[in-house]
């Protein structure tokens, strides 16, 4: 099972985690999600602006559902990084507060941090911004369960 363990070096970890943003995870791929950066228990994921993601055609603002997917994906990656190994996870719950409307034609960036993991459950928080972390679009809190292998 050693090949499920993430490499020690950052480039190797990034490369391995980026697989979840390829067509291995079809919906992440369909939305165009990109893993931008990682930390020891942190993932930064970008959702590029696209016309097909618009939830309100009059304002051009991206649908909340796409933001939910962005946050779910970023949080899942943060848990994997915290655990240091690729392991099946399920999202138990996700709470999202929408702090301000997203600006159209600008990518959304989620920064998720797994701040606690136990034998079975991992706790994650995330912020979504559009380039300025001090002016976030959304904040989120999620819990994930680690599945037995």
């Amino acid at each position: 099972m050693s090949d499920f363990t993430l490499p020690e070096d950052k480039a190797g970890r990034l490369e391995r985690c980026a697989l979840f943003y390829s067509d291995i995870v079809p919906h992440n791929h369909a939305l165009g999600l990109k893993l931008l950066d990682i930390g020891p228990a942190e993932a930064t994921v970008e959702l590029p602006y696209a016309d097909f993601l618009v939830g309100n055609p009059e304002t051009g603002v991206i649908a909340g559902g796409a933001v939910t997917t962005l946050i779910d994906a970023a949080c899942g990656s943060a848990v994997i990084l915290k655990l240091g190994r690729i392991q099946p996870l399920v999202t138990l719950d996700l709470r999202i507060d929408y702090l301000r409307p997203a600006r159209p034609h600008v990518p959304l960036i989620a920064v998720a941090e797994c701040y606690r993991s136990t034998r079975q459950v991992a706790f994650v928080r995330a912020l979504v911004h559009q380039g300025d972390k001090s002016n976030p679009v959304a904040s989120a809190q999620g819990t994930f369960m680690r599945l037995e292998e």
Partner: protein
Amino acid sequence: MSDAKSPSVLAELVHQVRKTRDYGRLTDAIPYTRFMGIGVENLAGEMLCRMRYTPKLIGNSFIPALHGGTLGALLESSAIFELLLQTETPRVPKVISVTVDFLRSGKAQDTFARAFITRQGRRVANVRVEAWQDDRTRPIASAHALFLLAEP
């Protein structure tokens, strides 16, 4: 932002669809619901949302299971359509917060959702939503969401 004073094209469309129940006109006008295959249907006199299965909704190819985000999207869309079509709100309600509980993994098939407005105030509406696949008594996800309605 559209001018709050003049009725927008979307508001006019919503107004018409409330009467004609030709829900496809509304869901087709929203790019994201079209992309996701989320539609509103009247089944046995009840307004439901259906997310038609396509392979691009998959999050885990090995099980296979729907991406959790797609269930969140269906629940949130369902709540918005319930508010748009069953109340007199003139504009698209803005989501304040949403909490999603994932109860079972979503299989590679169509998913249904039904929203219930638990409270509708002048400015804020509370909505509860459940999603299921084969068996309505075994929901696969549920949500409660808060929306800011347009100022009266």
